[in-house]
Structure formats: structure tokens, C-alpha cells
């Protein structure tokens, strides 16, 4: 068996007295697409940010291609980050830069590519997500939510990353636009041959874009398996979540 692309072993993270991740174990195979589902505030974003090194886990190990990246910094971190692309929930586009420079950012700043060449690549990537060339010269604030997501996707794939993270890719979009984004995610991930890790609570999207699904609850992965088996999980927590029932073992904290 080959080395998994990403491996989390006993990852723990707490903020003050609040334990968010309580020993997460997760394996993502090369060129597979894993979706982590779970309610709001269960640590989905913290998991992704820990892998990216934006947050540092308190305990545990994170391996990428078998390399321990839990505690690396500086140039080492930059080198590993070049394997990653990420689509942020709100797009997180740089509003001081035009659309094309957003898409080309990783190429120009991260890899030192000449601006003219990077611009051509940016326009190609924008075409891949269905945006015409004239959009490239607009400012991100002039775009609709769906278009911002597309630009964010183009930016995530601009440098042909080996791993792409999607943070709530369909949240805040209408159902049709959500499906368009789902299709784009599938085609772009296939296109660059990347490994994908997504977090979402949109079950339609989760079923569509994943090979495997894992559910995060109480700081632990409580169930994981192939997407086709999620309806036969036999796990009451998963059952409650995928059917969106208010009654069940999961108690939502109404008061913070």
C-alpha cells in the first residue's frame, strides 16, 4: 500500500478550556476526495487550519506524503504549502488586487513567476471555471457571490496543487449555483489529479463531491466510510445528521 497523501494521528487542539479536537485520526489516500461532515463548531475548520499550519495542534502528528509537517516553519513551511490550494468559505479574495492578480498570486509571490506569464495562466484558469477574460480585470468586490467562489476556485488550482481544500464550498449559494460549483470541484480536482479534502454540512454537496465521508463530532472522527455506505452507517449520530433531525443523540448547544 502506498503512503497516504495526508495522515492525522491523534491530533488535539484546545482553545483555553474548550477542547475542539480531541484526538483526530484521519487518512486521506492519494487522488481521493474526502469530505468531513459535522455540525457548526465541531472543529471542521480547525482540522483544516491545523493541516495548513495556520493553527498549531497541541498534540498529535500531521503527515503529508509521509513527511511530518506538524512543527515546521519558515521556508520549510512555504515549500510544503506549495503542495496546497484552498478555496475559502467567503472566497477570501484580496480586495486590493484585480481578479487576475488574485488568481496569479501564488504564481507571482510564491513561485516568482513573471507577471505577464502568470497573467496568461490566470486567464486560462478563469476559463476553466467558466469565467470570461474581461472578468480578469474587474475588482473582486464587483463580482457576485457565485463568481467570487469561482475566482476562489481558480486561485486554488492556479499553481496545479497536489492537495486542494474546500471550506464550505456551497454555503451561501443558491441550489443551482451550488450544483455548478460541485461540478466544477469534481472536474477541476480530476483535471489536476489532486487529492481533495472538503468540509461541509451540505449533504447534497458532500454526496456529490466525495469518495469517502468522515463525520466529526465531539472532537473525534466518529464514523468514516465510502460515500455509498453513508445511508447504511448504523451510527445514530450520522443518521441524525444526514437526515437533519432535531431529535437524536446530538444535542446542539443553543446557548454558547
Amino acid at each position, binding site marked *: 500500500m502506498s503512503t497516504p497523501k495526508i495522515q492525522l494521528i491523534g491530533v488535539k487542539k484546545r482553545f483555553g478550556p474548550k477542547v475542539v479536537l480531541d484526538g483526530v485520526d484521519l487518512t486521506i489516500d492519494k487522488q481521493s476526495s474526502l469530505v468531513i461532515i459535522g455540525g457548526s463548531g465541531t472543529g471542521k475548520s480547525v482540522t483544516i487550519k491545523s493541516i495548513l*499550519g495556520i493553527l498549531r495542534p497541541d498534540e498529535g502528528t500531521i503527515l503529508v506524503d509521509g513527511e511530518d509537517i506538524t512543527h515546521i516553519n*519558515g521556508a520549510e513551511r*512555504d*515549500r510544503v504549502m506549495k503542495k496546497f490550494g*484552498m478555496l*475559502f468559505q467567503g472566497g*477570501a479574495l484580496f480586495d486590493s488586487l484585480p481578479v487576475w492578480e488574485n488568481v496569479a*498570486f501564488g504564481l507571482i*509571490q*510564491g513561485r516568482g513567476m513573471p507577471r505577464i506569464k502568470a497573467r496568461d495562466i490566470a486567464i486560462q484558469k478563469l476559463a476553466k471555471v467558466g469565467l470570461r477574460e474581461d472578468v480578469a480585470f474587474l475588482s473582486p468586490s464587483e463580482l457576485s457571490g457565485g463568481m467570487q467562489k469561482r475566482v476562489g476556485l481558480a486561485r486554488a488550482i492556479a499553481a496545479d496543487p497536489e492537495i486542494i481544500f474546500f471550506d464550505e464550498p456551497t454555503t451561501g449559494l443558491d441550489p443551482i449555483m451550488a450544483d455548478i460549483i460541485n461540478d466544477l470541484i469534481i472536474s477541476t480536482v480530476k483535471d489536476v489529479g489532486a487529492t481533495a479534502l472538503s468540509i461541509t454540512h451540505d449533504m447534497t454537496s458532500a454526496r456529490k463531491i466525495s469518495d469517502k465521508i468522515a463525520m466529526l463530532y465531539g472532537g473525534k472522527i466518529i464514523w468514516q466510510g465510502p460515500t455509498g455506505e453513508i445511508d447504511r452507517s448504523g451510527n445514530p449520530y450520522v443518521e441524525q445528521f444526514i437526515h437533519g433531525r432535531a431529535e437524536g443523540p446530538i444535542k446542539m448547544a443553543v446557548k454558547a
Partner: protein
Amino acid sequence: MNFFASIGRATLTVLAHIGQLALFTGQALAAMVSPPIYSRLILGQMMRIGYYSLPVVGLTAFFTGGVLALQIYLGGNRFGAEAIVPQVVVLAVTRELGPVIAGLMIAGRVAAAIAAEIGTMKVTEQIDALTTLATNPIKYLVVPRIVAAVISMPILTAIGDSIGVMGGYAVSVYTLDFNGTGYLKNTVDFARSEDITSGLIKAAVFGFIVALMGCYHGFNSKGGAQGVGNATTNAVVASSILILAADYVLTALLFHK
């Protein structure tokens, strides 16, 4: 509630903040001396921090010089020393008021703008996005602002010094019946180069404080619009206080006898 526990908690919070700031400053200084250096961004920030601050610094310097001349004249008049106006004006402006007024204006204008911009980038995940694009946010956002502020502030202050002296000149010559040539001659004869350089050194330090405070509070803002608002306020208040405190320390060090 235990009285000692609350004192302890407050003390720990203050110490944690000082530690966090020291760490941030260390990261910024380390990033400053290692490649890549974004010279395009430094130039852009110099336009924003330095060039666009010229009007406000010029205006405040002019009125400060003017009111200084008037006050010294009225005060000096009590013991027949009103002729000392040009000497005191140039001394006060170059050593103290030029850099401090410019510093406070920049604190209001630039620290607020930096904190609001970086704070918004923080809460909209743009800073996280920089990390995922293999770009160090400290290097990309903080270093250009600090370098630009440290270069721009002495230039702004030098211009403010000249305008401040001219403010004193205008009031003295046009309302207090001083002789224009005599006023300028007294100014030039009296001022020493250390008066001017000490002010410019102060200005560079104030520039560092303003940019650092703007970036630090922006980076540590959380929780949406209100968090950004708080970061902006804190950046302006902290940089203003630190400028006045640093001014005292620098004066004591620079004119140590």
C-alpha cells in the same frame, strides 16, 4: 469573586499581551532582514503613508509654529524677552513639536488605516489565504508598512519642521512686527544640526511604532466589524501613548549629559 484572583488575572492578561507583542515584533524584524523583499509594496506604502500625509502634517505644523510664536511673544513680553521668538520656535519645532505632531497625525491617519485594512483581511480569512499561497503574511503585509513608515516619517518631519518654522515666521513678521530677514538669520544662526537630527531620529522611531501598532492590532483583531473597530481604536490609542512615552525616553537618551 476572589479579589486576588482578579488582580492575578489582569496581571496575566497584561503580561500575555506584552509577550505577544514582543513575539510579533521579533517576527517582523526577522522577516525584514531575510529575502524576499517586496520593494514594489514598500514604494506603494510610502505613497500612502508618506506622500498622502503631507497636507495634514503641513497644516498642523504651520499652525503649531504660528501659535508657538504668539505664545512665546506674549510670555517673553512679561520680562522683556520677546525677541527670543525665532530661537525658541526653531528649537521647539525641530526637537519636539515637529516629530511629535507628525507622529500623532500619522498615528491617527496611518495606524487606523493599517489596523482597519489588516483587521478586515484577518476576519475575511485573506491572511490565511496568503499562507495557503505560500506567502508569509508578516513579510507581505507587515514589513513593507514598517519599512515605509520608518523611511517616510523623517522626510515628513523634515518638511513639517520647515513649515513649522515658516508658521512662526509668518505670525512674527505679519502680526508681531518682527523684521523678516532678522528672524530668519536668528533662526539659522541658533539652530544646531543635532537639534534637527535628534528630531529626525525620533521621527523614524515614531514611524516604527505607528506601523507596528497598526499591524499588530490588525493581526489580532477578531469577530467581524466590531473587532475591526476595536483594533482600529486600540492601534490609534496605543501608538499615541507609545509615541509620547518614547519621546521622553529618546529625549533623555539623545541629550544625555
